[in-house]
């Protein structure tokens, strides 16, 4: 490492040496450090100025690299008290602001310092963790080619340094994982003050205000995510890289659990009340009212456009929804990577544990659970079964009724919506639910008591909900049909009267479908024509677990693109039953080819999301949004009057969005 120093560039009188060797340089630096300890700070201050030049003076890169390398060899001479300013000035340097030479020298210094003494370990790890995120001034460059290149260079170096430090200091990952979780950006982190960011947002808002005639031109590219979204994204990207990296076995579990915790934090921060207040929900709700016509003025957008504009408006305004959506997508991509590298089962084990401790316990989580759903879709035979087994086990054996009800709500929603599950698999769990309910009935007497038998009613409702989605496919297999028929009538006719207590909307749809598929169920049940009853509210409790369907269509736009190909929408199921009705009443309809039920292979619904454009996806997303609820036909069931508007959602609140 011989290096020529130019005196005018160096700016240091004592360093005006034409050519110096490594050992000379080490001696110089060591002398400067030792002199400072003995009360002669001149050379030390010159060294300090190299690391931390005055404002307006650009650092001399060659001199900086040389001094950093010399300091790396002299760490044993550093004193944490006397050389505090020098150590601080180096450890506060952001790698994002320098080229690769300085980055390498910084990392070399970091490793030497961390391994030299225990008192520097935390400082060095903190420096590396702080480099997970760029400084505020760099955020606007993150989506440009030079920024992307710089990001790769920084992150690669940071992670290789962390791995090397873990090799030298085997207990350092323990400190690192604690540090990473503590420094993770908070959900209420304020937006960094960026000049460029502000300008770009002003430009974006101006673009949105352009006159209508400009809409004929190609639309402008979507604005970049807000700075705080970008910061948390890059931080989590680093956490996931650690999870799959060389020290993943040591810190990976903590990283995944911390990410799931963050997802649930963001999830619970998005209240349904926010969505309820939007006009859009009224629109979609009205559109689901059977055959009612959508009141549209001449100048009004049609329903789909309204939904899309609502989604855009909602998500552009809700920072935490944007963060959550982006983080879930990042996690999905990581799960894909884990599958390719054969680590999905191991990662899923951690996710499942985290799910049981946080998501399952959270009050009506809305989005975080889709991480598990997607992982199951990648490996239905292993992950998919483990998920269902865990939920069923929780339902059977948890301590508290609320946990059991929550678990069975997840199980029902999962079995109903997961397109990747074979019908035999779904039938297996429906049979298990039936057996559980049947055993409960045989052990219990008495009459209706929603509060005392809430688990039983939750189990019955779950079973009926799954059958609403899967009945036709399941009953097509004689073996499954006979098993279901064996128990179901006894349960439904039991004095506990599940048909009276469970959500009327589900009960009605179940009975309607049972009639269509000729399943033996009580045929003298009188519909209450209500979306929910006092009895269902009573068994749902204050938490309203009777109306909790966790895997209803995902509202997050980016995440939905991953979920949609593996998802059963109600419109796909309903159309087939509608066809049956139409066949009976009017003959065939033009929706005959929407659903093909194949025994043993699940519901075969032709959707190819991967090959579509974003706009097509968005359009379809909007269409699916409007067709996900069960809408009993007027006059077909019960006493629906022709002029009566019956809210037909399976979920009576806008949860069914």
């Amino acid at each position, binding site marked *: 490492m011989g290096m020529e120093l130019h005196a005018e560039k160096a700016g240091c009188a004592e360093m005006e040496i034409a050519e110096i060797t490594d050992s000379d340089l*080490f001696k110089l630096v060591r002398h400067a450090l030792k002199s400072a300890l003995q009360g002669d700070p001149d050379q030390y201050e010159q060294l300090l100025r190299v690391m931390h030049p005055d404002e307006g003076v650009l650092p001399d890169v060659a001199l900086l690299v040389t001094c950093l390398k010399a300091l790396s*060899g*002299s*760490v*044993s001479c550093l004193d944490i008290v006397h050389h505090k300013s020098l150590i601080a000035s180096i450890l506060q340097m952001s790698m994002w602001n320098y080229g690769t030479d300085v980055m390498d020298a910084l990392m070399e210094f970091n490793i*030497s310092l961390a*391994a*030299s*003494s*225990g*008192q520097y*370990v935390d400082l060095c790890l903190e420096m590396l963790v702080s480099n997970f995120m760029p400084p505020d001034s760099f955020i606007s460059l993150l989506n440009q080619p030079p920024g992307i290149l710089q990001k790769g260079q920084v992150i690669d170096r940071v992670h290789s340094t962390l791995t090397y430090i873990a*090799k*030298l*200091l*085997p*207990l350092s990952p*323990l400190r690192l994982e604690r540090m990473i979780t503590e420094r993770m950006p908070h959900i209420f982190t304020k937006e960094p003050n960026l000049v460029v960011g502000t300008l770009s947002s002003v430009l974006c808002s101006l673009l949105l205000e352009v006159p209508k005639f400009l809409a004929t031109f190609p639309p402008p590219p979507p604005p970049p995510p807000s700075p705080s979204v970008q910061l948390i994204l890059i931080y989590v990207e680093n956490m996931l890289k650690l999870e799959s990296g060389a020290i993943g076995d040591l810190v990976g579990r903590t990283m995944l659990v911390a990410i799931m915790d963050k997802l649930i934090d963001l999830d619970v921060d998005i209240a349904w009340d926010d969505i309820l207040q939007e006009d859009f929900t009224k629109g979609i709700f009205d559109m689901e009212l059977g055959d009612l016509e959508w009141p549209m003025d001449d100048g009004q957008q049609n329903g789909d456009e309204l939904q899309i504009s609502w989604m855009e408006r909602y998500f552009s305004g809700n920072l935490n929804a944007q963060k959550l959506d982006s983080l879930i997508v990042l996690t999905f991509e990581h799960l894909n990577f884990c599958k390719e590298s054969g680590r999905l089962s191991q990662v899923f084990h951690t996710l499942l544990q985290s799910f049981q401790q946080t998501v399952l316990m959270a009050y009506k989580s809305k989005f975080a659970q889709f991480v598990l759903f997607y992982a199951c879709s990648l490996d239905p035979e292993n992950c998919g079964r483990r998920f269902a087994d865990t939920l069923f086990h929780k339902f059977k054996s948890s301590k508290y009724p609320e946990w059991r009800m929550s678990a069975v709500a997840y199980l029902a929603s999962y079995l109903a919506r997961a397109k990747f599950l074979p019908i035999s698999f779904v039938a297996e769990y429906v049979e298990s639910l039936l057996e559980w309910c049947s055993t409960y009935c045989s052990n219990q007497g008495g009459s209706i008591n929603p509060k005392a038998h809430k688990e039983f009613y939750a189990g019955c409702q779950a079973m009926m909900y799954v059958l609403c989605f899967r009945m036709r496919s399941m009953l097509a297999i004689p073996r499954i049909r006979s098993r279901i028929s064996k128990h179901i009538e006894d349960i439904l006719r039991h004095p506990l009267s599940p048909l009276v207590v469970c959500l009327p909307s589900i009960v009605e749809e179940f009975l309607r479908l049972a009639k269509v598929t000729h399943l033996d169920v009580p045929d003298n049940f009188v519909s209450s024509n209500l979306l929910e009853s006092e009895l269902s509210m009573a068994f749902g409790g204050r938490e309203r677990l009777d109306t909790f369907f966790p895997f209803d269509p995902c509202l997050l736009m980016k995440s939905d693109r991953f979920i949609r190909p593996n998802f059963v929408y109600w419109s796909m199921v309903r159309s087939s039953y509608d066809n049956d009705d139409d066949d009976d009443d009017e003959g065939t309809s033009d929706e005959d080819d929407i659903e093909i039920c194949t025994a043993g292979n699940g519901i075969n619904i032709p959707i190819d999301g991967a090959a579509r454009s974003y706009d097509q996806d968005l359009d379809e997303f909007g269409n699916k949004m409007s067709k996900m609820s069960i809408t009993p036909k007027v006059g077909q069931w019960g006493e629906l009057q022709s002029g009566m508007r019956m809210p037909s959602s399976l979920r009576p609140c806008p949860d069914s969005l």
Partner: protein
Amino acid sequence: MEALKECRANLVVNLHPSNAKNVETAVYRELSSLLFKFNEALDGVVLTYEPKFSSNLARILPGIHPYFGVRLEAKLLLFNPKPEMLLEGEVVKVGEQSIHIVVLGFSSAVIADEDIREDFKYKIKHGKEVFVSRSNKKHRIKVGTTLRFSVKNFDEEILHICGSLIPDNTGNIQWLETKAEESQAYRFANCEVSIHLFHSITPPHAFSDIAALQKRG
């Protein structure tokens, strides 16, 4: 290794009432929390534990949550290096200014250049960094070497050791043991010579006479 010691400790583990159904698991979980941390009361880093439950009774503590204290005796293996102790570990990095070692797979140690005796010279051989003894070129320290070094100080929070290669009985263990065997063999050889000399001086029958006398006695 000098820094390892085994001790028996009488412990009281206070458990939350929710653990009453599975006390043993809860005790193991509490003991696990001691691992790889310096404990002042025990004066060392706990490496292993083996609890022994002598009673199924526990004392309930007064308070809002009735925690209960389980008494047990635990056999613990502790690690507590003191200055001047000799430790052994694997070299993981060699540089001109320092040698880095990992002891027992968890504790890191560093030997700075001023703590490496003059006998060792830093060299780069075949692209690999190595310290070679000037007095015996077979005595080398490189990555992967099992090294014996003396303790200068021990950071109890980070479990980081500063070591030294100044004492003569430190260095590459393989070389030190070979040297010890050679010197022992040399001593044996000298001893055999002296026995032969003794045999030659004392006639063989003298021994049998002594044995006969002992039997009679």
